[in-house]
């Protein structure tokens, strides 16, 4: 415990000395956190400085091994770092699919060469990755994907199309599921490939969502040449990598339901519906908010418990489906309450007063949470089958 206490004190002191004040203010938009990549334009010097300082410590990815540029922290130390960052209000220095998705996959399935090539660039935010999973014809039934990679001797030739590729138009590289054996059963003919988005034959088209934003693209591959060395894991064994990655994605999306909010729902509602003796004047809304907060607090504790269970080997491998299902449904419920509390004010779509319709757009965006990364219904299928052992399908 003494070591951890020392670590905690040192970490706090370091963060206080090194995290610029601008990086401790609440975030206003997604660009407030650096996503990295060849084309990233820093919003401010503070953002660049904060990234550089954290990169030097390896703390953009605190738990990765030092040999790949990570922080080499233990789970407990990383937890302390997160707690201290939260306590001081420090923004994350770098958020990327490389950190949350590709990195863990490479650490588990990548060759030594692949790790040395890609992980340090992810840690430093030099390369921004996107994920090529879903296809226009393959949503929930992901394993039916049709994008094919033909073996041409020294390279693969990739043809097909991906959809819901997050930030494909801003990314440098893609990790992609492709069919390498069209005759095998659907789960057994898939491989996991990496390639550069600047390769000839790659094109992207942004998709405008109901929120008005275009975070996703459709991505097209037309005779794209991919070196054989870019295969991760074994040929036709890409589904294992995909499943492993999906659990990381689910944890990430599920965790969104518990992000620390600047203002509580009770405060937001107090401004619109008024208070009576210190209690919200709309007593029905007050009850709904309290019921939500009960579930939100219990869910936050559940994430803590699942982490502690994982440490002692008690967590069920499919528990990420629980977190994904519960966290996203909770987040949708929260956004409905935010809209209800905001009333007519929350309906504004443009202009400075509503910060370009921030509330309404966030509400609409939240509806995708229970679709992306495997729908709520898919998560319930997984729980029914893998955790509860119910028969059939």
């Amino acid at each position, binding site marked *: 415990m003494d070591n951890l206490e020392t670590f905690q004190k040192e970490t706090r002191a370091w963060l206080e000395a090194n995290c610029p004040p601008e990086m401790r203010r609440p975030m206003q938009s997604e660009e407030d956190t650096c996503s990295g990549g060849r084309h990233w334009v820093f919003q401010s010097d503070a953002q660049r400085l904060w990234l550089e300082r954290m990169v030097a410590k390896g703390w953009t990815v605190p738990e990765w091994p030092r040999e790949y540029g990570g922080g080499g922290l233990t789970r407990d130390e990383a937890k302390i770092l997160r707690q201290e960052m939260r306590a001081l209000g420090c923004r994350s220095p770098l958020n990327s699919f490389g950190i949350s998705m590709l990195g863990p996959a490479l650490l588990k399935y990548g060759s030594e060469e692949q790790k040395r090539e890609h992980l340090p660039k992810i840690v430093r935010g030099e390369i921004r990755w996107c994920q090529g999973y879903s296809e226009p014809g393959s949503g929930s039934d992901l394993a039916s994907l049709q994008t094919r990679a033909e073996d041409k001797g020294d390279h693969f030739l990739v043809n097909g199309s991906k959809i819901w590729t997050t930030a494909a138009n801003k990314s440098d590289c893609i990790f992609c599921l492709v069919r390498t054996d069209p005759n095998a059963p659907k789960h057994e003919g898939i491989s996991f490939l990496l390639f550069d988005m600047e390769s000839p034959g790659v094109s992207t088209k942004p998709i405008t969502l109901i929120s008005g934003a275009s975070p996703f693209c459709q991505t097209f591959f037309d005779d794209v040449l991919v070196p054989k060395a870019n295969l991760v894991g074994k040929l036709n064994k890409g589904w294992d990598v995909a499943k492993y990655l999906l659990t990381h994605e689910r944890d990430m999306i599920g965790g969104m339901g518990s992000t620390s909010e600047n203002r*509580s*729902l*009770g*405060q937001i*509602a*107090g401004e619109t519906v008024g*208070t009576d003796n*210190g*209690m*919200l004047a709309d007593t029905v809304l*007050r*009850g709904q*908010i*309290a*019921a939500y*907060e*009960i*579930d939100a*607090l*219990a*869910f936050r*504790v*559940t994430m*803590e*418990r699942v982490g*502690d*269970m994982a*440490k*002692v080997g*008690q967590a069920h491998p499919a528990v990420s489906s*629980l977190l994904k*299902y*519960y966290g996203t449904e909770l987040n949708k419920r929260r956004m409905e309450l935010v809209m209800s509390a905001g009333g007519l004010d929350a309906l504004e779509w443009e202009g400075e007063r509503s910060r370009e319709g921030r509330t309404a757009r966030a509400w609409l965006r939240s509806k995708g949470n229970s679709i992306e990364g495997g729908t709520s*219904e898919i*998560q*319930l*299928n997984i*729980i*029914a*089958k893998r*955790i*509860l*052992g*119910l*028969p*059939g*399908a």
Partner: protein
Amino acid sequence: MALVLNDEQTMLRDNARGFLGKNAPIAHLRALRDKRDADGFSRALWKDFVEMGWAGILVPQDYGGLGLGHVEAGVVMEELGRTLTPSPFLSTAVLAATAIARAGTEQQKKNYLSRIVAGDLIATLAVDETAKHHPERTAMTAARAGSSFKLNGAKTFVIDGHVANLLIVIARSAAKPGDTGGLTLFLVDASARGIRAERTPTVDTHNAARLTFEDVNVSVDNVLGKIDAGWDVLEGVLNVGRAAVAAEMVGAGEEAFGRTIAYLRERKQFGRLIGEFQALQHRAAHLYCELEVTRSAVLKALQTLDDSFDRAGAIVSVAKARAGLSATLAVQEAIQMHGGIGMTDEFDIGLFMKRVRVGQELFGDANFHADRLARLNRY
């Protein structure tokens, strides 16, 4: 503290589960019910609990108890929830022991705690007066007369009130109903003159009584804690009771759920196992999530009572509200998914529904605790 049971707690759970499964399964509750047992619980079984140290699980070792924490008490409550075992564990080992250990004078602790540990005393908390839990609205009066108080009023749903030897009574020594100030806790001999106990047969065949107090004299020496300032002690004791009942509901809810899953795996209709139907799979999976999320909150509440007792209010309310709601969902789904057989008295599932309804109501239902959380968070 990690949110998992440690090795000792796991061993306690396994021992409790083994013991209760063998000595107090649901058939035990049925037998007490069917013979209309006058006590409503088995004194022989309670003696076994005493011998295992459970009566003194929360009593400090200085007074002969095991001196364990709320997590451990919760572990036993959860197992009692699985078997629906009626016993004075909640009234005596949890509520009364907590009240005396936290607020008693040295003399009171020596006198009462050792007798609780030895199994010589059944003790309980007499708090509720109305159909819904509102401790601050206590109207029962305690009028000072020289070196004693005179208690007048009535208490309802006093757990084990028909068999208790010692009553811890909350009464109003000052101020008006609705004020949290002006309340005092009294240690009252259940055989004192002026007390009348009427057993309340309840839906779950567990034990409660209605008590009336008519000019009951209590010496000032038997005040528990401070005169007029009993609220904080009461809140602490109630928080422990709430977390304990929440743990019991976790046990009852999960047992009902486990039996339902087993049924989905064996019952056939339309030539298929009904567990193959996605309509039922999704409801079962959703219920599983609710129960797991509740389990986290209840464990966190029990740990918080152990780590920082005075700051446990919010998480205890979260745990109690969730435990009531998710156990209710579990027993409702259990009966629906069992179909017709779930409606029969012969089948056990209905007994879970009955106990869960009581657990939901005890020490504040989900609405009470939602309101409490909103107040704590100032909205």
